[in-house]
């Protein structure tokens, strides 16, 4: 079964026009040695059977439509207005290519320009690009901007409380580039970014240091005022890169307003479904001074021949299809469709909605946190302690039994309870990371508390 529309008669006529007898003859110039053997694959299906087959597979998943999701750690279960999915289903948008032909691509171009505006304002920066792959690769691109801008290829310092997957991705790339990466974990097994230790190392690094990358909010949900730290980093001649969830900036002061030069990260929380980790939405925003170091596509406003407002891809001389090996990045395909989803999400919610969603996250996370803290130490409860630190909508809970077992118990009660931190560090096997978004109901929060009281 295929989507090839040809009738038998049309095929014959076309073959005749080409001057061959059979389809196979179109490949007569290929050497015999490279011809494909018969494929070892199942037979094709009509859409009726196909749909049933995919439904059968789907029924083996138990997703957040079925489980109460208190799991975050870089992927967040927020309410997405149905209008977002409705709008993104427009064929003009999702079946379009990159808008290289501006005359017939004003729709996507204007949407991306508007998206750039929204992300820049949210991050507290001057400019933002048209999107990157995801949060992990956005950190890599953000750091590469700093490497190029400073011309310092000796050292990158990173906060150990950045998402471990992002740090791992950064390590993969910097290793290939021959740039040293030093990761500084939180002090004493805690959860707040070690700004003190990072600052000391930055001051001592001399001319080698290109940038310091910090998480804000960090992997453990912690937030701290970066402004003094930013001054210190700048004093060392380096740039400050903040790896951030922009959803938080409806209520929190964004890193761009706290002195960060480059703000990058994962914007999935802005209207993109969880979808098992992708496609997500990497973003990067920066000061105007860094715009020519930006990776990937940028949409700019201009005019057409009649002087009417128009939009086009611009500064393409930075990009791979023009600059080849001298490009600022190899990125080509980005996540434009997810950027448009984020646009629709932010447009529907507006400033008030985004603030309100952020406030509800804070209130509900704080509520669960305090309730769980109340349980700590009570007999029979699974909780040992709930450490205190300023956090957005995620926090760490210390458990009596291994977190893995506690989470398995919660799953039996249809609660996706959080992330076992032992996954990344055996010393943290009795710690779990819990996230509460605005979507979690009072009943779900209550069920969580009740479950942990007896686990």
């Amino acid at each position, binding site marked *: 079964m295929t*989507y090839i*529309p*040809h009738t038998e008669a*049309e095929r014959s006529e076309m073959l005749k026009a080409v001057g061959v007898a059979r389809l*196979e003859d*179109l*490949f007569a*110039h290929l050497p015999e040695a490279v011809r*494909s053997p018969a*494929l070892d*694959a199942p*037979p094709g299906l009509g859409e009726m059977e*196909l*749909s049933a087959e995919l439904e059968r597979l789907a029924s083996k*998943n138990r*997703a*957040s439509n079925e489980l109460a999701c208190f799991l975050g750690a*870089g*992927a967040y279960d927020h309410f997405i207005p149905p*209008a977002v999915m409705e709008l993104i289903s427009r064929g003009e*948008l*999702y*079946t*379009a*290519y*990159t*808008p290289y*032909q501006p005359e017939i691509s004003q729709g996507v171009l204007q949407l991306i320009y508007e998206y750039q*505006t929204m992300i*820049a304002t949210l991050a507290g920066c*001057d400019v933002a690009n048209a*999107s990157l*792959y995801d949060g992990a690769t956005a950190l890599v691109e953000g750091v590469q901007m700093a490497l190029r801008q400073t011309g310092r290829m000796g050292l990158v310092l990173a906060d150990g409380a950045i998402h471990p*997957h992002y740090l*791992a991705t950064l*390590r993969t790339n910097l*290793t290939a580039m021959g740039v040293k990466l030093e990761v500084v974990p939180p002090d004493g097994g805690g959860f707040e970014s070690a700004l003190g230790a990072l600052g000391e190392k930055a001051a001592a690094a001399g001319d080698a240091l290109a940038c310091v990358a910090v998480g804000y909010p960090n992997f453990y949900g912690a937030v701290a005022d970066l402004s003094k730290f930013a001054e210190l980093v700048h004093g060392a001649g380096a740039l400050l890169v903040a790896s951030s969830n922009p959803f938080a900036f409806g*209520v929190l*002061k964004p890193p761009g307003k706290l002195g960060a030069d480059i703000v990058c990260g994962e914007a999935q929380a802005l209207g993109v479904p969880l*979808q098992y*980790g*992708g496609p*997500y939405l990497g973003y990067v925003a920066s000061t105007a001074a860094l715009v020519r170091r930006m990776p990937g596509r940028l949409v700019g406003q201009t005019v057409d021949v009649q002087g009417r*407002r128009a939009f*086009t891809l*611009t500064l393409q*001389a930075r990009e*791979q299809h023009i600059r080849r*090996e001298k490009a600022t990045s*190899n990125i*080509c*395909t980005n996540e434009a*469709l997810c950027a448009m989803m984020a646009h629709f999400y*932010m*447009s529907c919610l*507006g*400033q*008030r909605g985004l603030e309100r969603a952020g406030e509800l996250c804070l209130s509900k996370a704080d509520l669960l946190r305090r309730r769980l803290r109340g349980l700590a130490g009570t007999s029979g409860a699974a909780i040992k302690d709930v450490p205190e630190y300023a956090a957005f909508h995620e926090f760490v809970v210390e458990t009596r039994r291994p977190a893995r077992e506690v989470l398995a118990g919660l799953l039996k009660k249809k609660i996706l309870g959080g*992330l076992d931190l032992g996954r990344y560090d055996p010393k943290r096997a009795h710690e779990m990371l819990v996230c509460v978004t605005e979507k979690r109901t*009072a009943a779900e929060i209550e069920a969580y508390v009740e479950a942990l009281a007896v686990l």
Partner: protein
Amino acid sequence: MELIFEKNRPGAPDIYFPDETPAGARRADEIVPDALRRNETLDLPSLSELEVVRHVLALCRRQVGIDSTFYPLGSCTMKYNPKINEAVARWPQYASLHPLAPDETAQGTLQALYELERGLAQVTGMDEITLNPLAGAHGELTGLLLIKAWHESRGDAKRRKILVPDAAHGTNPASAAIVGYEVVTIPGTPEGLVDLKGLEAALGDDVAGLMLTNPNTLGLFERDIVKIAKLVHDAGGQLYYDGANLNAILGVARPGDMGFDVVHMNLHKTFSTPHGGGGPGAGPVGVKKHLREFLPIPFVRKDGERYGTSEERPKTIGRIGGFYGNANVLVRAYTYFRKHGRDGLPKVGQHAVLNAAYVLAKLQKTYTRPLGLPCMHEFIIQPTEEMLAKGVRTLHIAKRLIDYGYHPPTIYFPLVVKEAMMIEPTETESKATLDGFVEAMEKIAKEALENPELVIGAPHSSPVGKVDETKAARQLDLRFCACE
């Protein structure tokens, strides 16, 4: 058209969230220290949902996709994006699955990913697949990291060069540079193929590998591919397959059998997942056995009837992204794979070539065909000398196509062919559509000679006319600012 910010009505009511603080909870301002609270307004629009919907639909009228019109964009494989792919990917069981959810709650998705891996290995003739790369260029980066890791594992640290044909996609050299390789361009023959003598001269013990597309970026099959593979391997190098043009040979010939060591695929081309106005894509990478141990993490494994994720790969190049690839793009590709199956996939390659050969057979009567070898899934034509003498260039013809309701082909690529128009119809277009396009091209050819100004001034019917790109770059305006 107005920007959404210019339609702003501050104070428009929110319809999504309750106003009250939840029972027993503190207010946000009681939780966050004042120094960390945003206390500035945002340039976010404040509108009703209906106003937002109308804004977006007005913009849709200024945009074309494959769903709107024939889109023969060479090298981009703009085939039909089947609607069932989209429907499946939106089912909550796939769309609402958390990437860090326990494996036991993700069995359906993991099975789909596992079977897609097996399917892609079959189609490419490779031994192992990683689904991690998030786009084609990301696949290139991954493949080059694998090649680098392999050379280093053999204690061979002197290989600093990657060879790239002069007609290659720009991502090839850009990816090689990021991995720290020096890029060496090798020339092509007048026929449009790799120059074997030039290749031999460039090969040596400092060359890590050769990156190649096949069919190449001129739409021609490298008939000496087996010899090329031998030359590269004999010199100790690795052969990299850029999957940009895989659609031409889908189910017909396999890169693995040609001697390639690493392959990346663009599922947003060959496997019908939507281009999304510039992404998301998915760029899985396939390798031969000797490179398997270096593949990125995580990966899916099968244990009896259970599927699980694993990071146990001691020699891995590491992680290359946040989670496990663009999973919901992969679910769409899996849907496409199951739809076609073993019998359908070869038909895709065959008809992709038939459609291209058919349009070329018609158009070579009115346009110049610079290359004589048989075309594969795409081909290059140029304006004739007579058209050029009238001042009509490729850009003008492309823009005039817009007036006839078509998306233009890829133009001025590859750079090695002057005034190139690269046309790739794909297999999902009917003969009637192709005939209509040919007819429009013939009319434009006539106009170019009889009324060149009409063509040169095109487009005449688009929402905006030719755009001032110089102004865009010189007077940089990348965001709206309410302050003006």
